[in-house]
């Protein structure tokens, strides 16, 4: 392989393409991250076609926002955008389609005694994120990764277990304990969802 092909594989190289307003930025982003983004959206939406549209929207968002933004973690940035698109689509459709990993993850969260609903309080959103972030940072890496894989990436339990080196039973038990801990923390902080 030519040296240039290897160099092209870096995040910084892709960002340089965005900053140069080269359309190659989109093809390189698609090449490097498209598969993973599509899989993420498909797990949430349960539909390959809808997932494709979300990824296209995410790429368009990247084109519009980079520059001036310069994400430190490009994949994470794209994943957040694509995930937001996918969840927004679910919310507007008022229906969660079967087949995605999201269904199970949502059922698990719904079984947890999350704080009572006085939702949509202005300014609450940032505080909730801050509490969740602080709580996650306290966790050892394996626990933290298991939680993020299951509830951010909507991975199946099997995939979560495989990625974290746990048996499915151990992963299930770990996630149960973590959900309870998080619910307690949110309650302690007076957070309402």
């Amino acid at each position, binding site marked *: *392989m030519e040296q240039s092909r290897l160099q092209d594989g870096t995040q910084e190289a892709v960002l340089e393409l965005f900053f140069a307003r080269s359309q190659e930025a989109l093809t390189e982003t698609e090449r490097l991250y498209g598969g993973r983004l599509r899989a993420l959206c498909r797990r949430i939406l349960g539909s390959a076609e809808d997932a494709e549209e979300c990824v296209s929207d995410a790429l368009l968002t990247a084109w519009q926002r980079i520059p001036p933004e310069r994400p*430190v973690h490009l994949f994470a940035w794209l994943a957040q955008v694509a995930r937001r698109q996918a*969840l927004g689509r679910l919310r507007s459709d008022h229906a969660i389609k079967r087949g995605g990993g999201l269904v199970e993850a949502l059922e698990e969260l719904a079984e947890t005694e999350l704080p009572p609903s006085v939702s949509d309080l202005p300014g609450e959103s940032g505080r909730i994120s801050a509490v969740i972030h602080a709580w996650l940072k*306290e966790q050892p890496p394996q626990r933290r990764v298991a939680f993020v894989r299951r*509830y951010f990436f909507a991975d199946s339990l099997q995939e979560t277990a495989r990625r974290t080196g746990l048996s499915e039973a151990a992963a299930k038990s770990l996630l149960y304990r973590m959900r309870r801990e998080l619910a307690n923390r949110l309650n302690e902080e007076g957070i309402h969802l």
Partner: protein
Amino acid sequence: MNEQERRAFALMEQLGGLDPALIEEAERYEAARPGLNLRPARRRVVPRLLVAALLVATLGLGAAASGVWDGMLQRFFDPSPQAMDQMREAVELPDVTADCGGTILHVRQTLGDVFNIYFNLDITLPKTVDLAALTQDLENGWTIRLGELRFFTGSTDWDEVKELRTQSEIDEYFRGRRHSSRGSISVFSEGGPNERGTLSYLVGFTAEARYSLLPTPLTDQPLTLVIDDISLSRPSQGGGSPETKPLVEGPLVVSWEPKNSGPVYLFTIPYQHPLRPGDEPSDWEATVVLSSLSIDISFPVTNELWESYDDFARSVRILDREGNPIHIGSGSGGSYTGGDFRQISYTRTFREVLVMDEVGSIVIGDFVLELADGERID
């Protein structure tokens, strides 16, 4: 949605605002599994007599058999005489020391090549740490835990970074110098501290070749290791979040210029494949990098080449000159990407040193790469 589902959905939405570093960590985690990415150092409780016996055995046999191989590298890889002979240029003794405000980092011996490095790291705690109290803590179930380890290009003195406190400040300072956004770091502890307050570790770093081999190889340029901090941690009595307390404030840094030169072969595989199912096939090129310490394989498009990732992984074999599989075990690192199987970036570190003279070919599914056709790039 009922009320509970609505709350669950709201929580799901809130998780979208996670720190991107946590998302990247979860995406990369496999790179360090099962061995230990940032694994907290565990204090081994070993009878003193056994320790003494191991030390005698290690020093006696290790020194005699391996020549320059340090005890920890020797114990980890347990190399054959052929492996040690092959890796003569891969072993170095930089013997670099960095004083980080009283905490001393000492890189004694290194083993590596252009995209792998293993080294012995001694960390001597500052005089301000009460060793008697620390020993008491360790006996009470606390473990010493290194903060995040990261590698950057270039040389850095502790004085330059000592005021940096948060991870984002450190990231900003080293912007553009991150050695690789992808790679695996392993940390193995041999316990401690000893009576001088020294903790001993074996640290390994394997950069994914696709991202790091060119243009920034690990060797022949300064390399900086940054450790966020050192803390004590123990499980919570009530089963909640673990308790932690600081031991040494960071960041801690040490720089040196690795010149390790283990053998590395680069292969390319031109192939035709549709970008998306149903497309006309187009030209692609896969990359394979084989070293004595790891193998890195990158296929940009793999829609129909393998049924699953497991099929792909099972299809990867290293054969000897007679065509028999070489079993060298998997080390602590390894990763792949490609959730929907459109591309693969696969790295696997080895638990033993691969003797290149014994290798005949690499088989990846239907692709067969003869070692003799590879390009030496070490």
